[in-house]
């Protein structure tokens, strides 16, 4: 849905790094290099960004009537 605020395993904040990660990977950069640049060292935190699928922007249209 939406990027979690913290890593599920170690609790490091990763939510703030999502938009830069997404932007740079979409521009064709290697995710491994982007993660290294962002200073995400442990594999628990790296999988948070690597495996995340941002669904919320698609879900927002299917809300209850305002």
């Amino acid at each position, binding site marked *: 849905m*939406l*990027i979690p*605020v*913290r*890593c599920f395993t*170690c*609790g*490091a*904040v990763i*939510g*703030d790094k*999502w*938009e830069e990660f997404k932007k740079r990977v979409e521009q064709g950069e290697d995710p491994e290099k982007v993660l290294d640049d962002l200073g995400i060292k442990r594999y628990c935190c790296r999988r948070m960004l690597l495996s995340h699928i941002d669904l*919320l*922007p698609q*879900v*927002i*249209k*299917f*809300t*209850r009537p*305002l």
Partner: protein
Amino acid sequence: MKTRILEKDSKTIKLLIEDTSLAFVNAIRRLAISDVPTLAIDEVAFLDNTSVLYDEIIAHRLGLIPLTTDLEHYKSSEECEGADPITNPECYVRLFLDVEAKEDGTVIYSGDLKSEDPAVKPVYDNIPIVVLAKGQKLTFEAYARLGRGKEHIKWSPVTVSAHKYVPVLKINFEKCDLCGKCVKACPKDVLEIKNDKLIIKNIFSCTLCRACEEVCEPQAIKVSWAEDSFILTIESTGALPPEKIVYEAAKILWKKADEMEKLIEELSEGE
């Protein structure tokens, strides 16, 4: 006891503590995780939420956002038990948000939160809280208070708090035939051959894996560790500087030791 800083930046600190016991270093490690207080959002009053996420999910996300913590001006969680968030500014900091999305896909960030205390604000400004469609509204008041990691992990100031032994590599230069196998086998790049001699480049990055010991045919390398020295690594969430976390943990340990001493004195007087 001697302490030396091996590495330090804004988020992490690595300390070499010599001439001490494992129990002492472990006490500091555990206190850093569960007893050093920080500020975190604890109560949220939603006035309006027409976003796709439930109130509870947004409240949970808000709680996990680290806040810059001012330990001097707020009362501890024990003193504030049962206090009303609205009427006790010495216990609670009020943060609020009032937005209505003007277009689809408006992202609300942690930096959009407005705080009544300028010293208390989210450490990171670009954590997404929710995404809104056009016309959706989100209005809430959030109250942050001091708490401890043992109550909920959102109050823990650390993400990593770990200690390890100081490695000791013994090289028998008479047996060593400079084959270089150990240099290649080491996953942490600790060893190096320089001027026809095997030297240790950085002993502190050794993980005691013993790969060098295994590949050494003449059995010239022996991996062991020092009994009274430890490396303590602390990584902060950003709520407190890492050196402050160690300092606060030591202060809490001191206080607990004093309480223990007093208790023992009282007990021995009763006899």
